[in-house]
């Protein structure tokens, strides 16, 4: 229930109560009544939850995290990186294995 979807604001209604957002190619309407009037502008990234915009995503903070991840990846040695790519394909299987463990 509490999962929210990052989306981009593409249109805002004149009374600023509704907006249209793009979620990876899918457009939908979202309610803006939980946000102050000038909080959101077209082009902002927002979090969407049960039809409402619940907050703006801070571009700088998101980019800072992405930069941190790049730095961390650079610290991995070549062998670890190869292993990581291989194991990336196995994450779903890992999830299923964990669920099985709990069941038994």
């Amino acid at each position, binding site marked *: *229930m*509490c999962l929210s979807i*990052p989306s981009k604001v593409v249109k805002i209604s004149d009374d600023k109560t509704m907006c249209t957002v793009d979620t990876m190619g899918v457009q939908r309407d979202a309610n803006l009544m939980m946000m102050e009037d000038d909080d959101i502008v077209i082009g902002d990234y927002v979090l969407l939850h049960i039809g409402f915009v*619940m907050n703006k995503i801070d571009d700088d903070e998101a980019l800072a995290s992405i930069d941190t991840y790049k730095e961390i990846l650079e610290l991995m040695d070549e062998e670890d990186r190869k292993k990581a790519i291989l194991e990336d*394909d196995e994450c779903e299987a890992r*999830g299923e294995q964990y669920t099985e463990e709990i069941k038994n």
Partner: protein
Amino acid sequence: MAELELKNLYDNFRDGNTIKAYAKIIAEDAQKLKKPINIMEVCGGHTHTIMKFGLPQLLPDNVNFIHGPGCPVCIMPKERIDHAYVLSMQPNVILVTLGDMIKVPGSNGSLQDARAKGADVRFVYSPMECIKIAQENEDKKVIFFAIGFETTTPMTAVLIDQVIKQEIKNIFFHINHVTVPEVMVELIDSRDVHVDSYNNQIDAFLGPSHVSVISGSKIYDKFPKEYGRPVVVTGFEPVDAMQGISMIVKQFAEERCEMEVQYKRVVNYDGNLKAQALIEKYFEKMSLFRWRGLGNVPDSGLKLREAYDAYDAEVIYKDVLPIAEIEDHKLCICGDILRGMGSPRSVPSLELRVSLLHL
């Protein structure tokens, strides 16, 4: 700095290489731990990520999870589900709720069962859909059975606000909103003399993502200060989760005990103040709310303020709503599991074990 694109918000926070890189960092820091640590992810969204991406398998043996109580549907006691069922059976009533509630069983069955018996029960994506349903059914009473943590409470408050402003006469509310910090306290320091929380095994909390977007990270200040438990507010993507776990392990390795925010791209200290003001305007604390598996938790539930009694289905229908508490199954050890003093594996009944997995 490069420009952010929408796909970055998905791809970069799910990147397998980064997940593995954090696994390595956690393993290194975990070597400095003096004893194994148990991290509770409070929120069901985190549990979903942890299970889906098999994160425990990437962690060293001395870093473990205790899966928390953060699903507002699973924790709903039977008597509240019974309220929904009874309300749906009243004449001229349309009961509206979020889809998550469909299959949760009460004493008489689930809302899906009520619908099979002819009740008009509708499941919506957003509470605001109630307005359209009410306008299309002016001769009916639309009751919104409201559920959810702080994440979802302000959306109910917006609906109430609009019902009043638009003078809509046929929408009513049955409120079941619950709050996170109070149940976190209950798990580590229960005020119930019958509950032994003294031996709980929770060493740190992975703080919820979207509860914190609304309430701000300030609601966790007391956990490191008063209870000696670090909290790291963490996002829902797998890279977020691994970074959050890494931050907790680092705190223990460096013998720190703090509240930190990993999910800085959306969570700040104060939270969404407009949403908080809407909650404050329409809701007040209930002295007790009963959680399935945990029993009565002080101050953990919200109800409509008395000024809005005319919209409160619990007041309007008080003569038909059952008031008796329904005890949990006597073999249920959910409370012990949530305190890390029991394991799902030790649930004696297979039927209960299966239902636990489906919660």
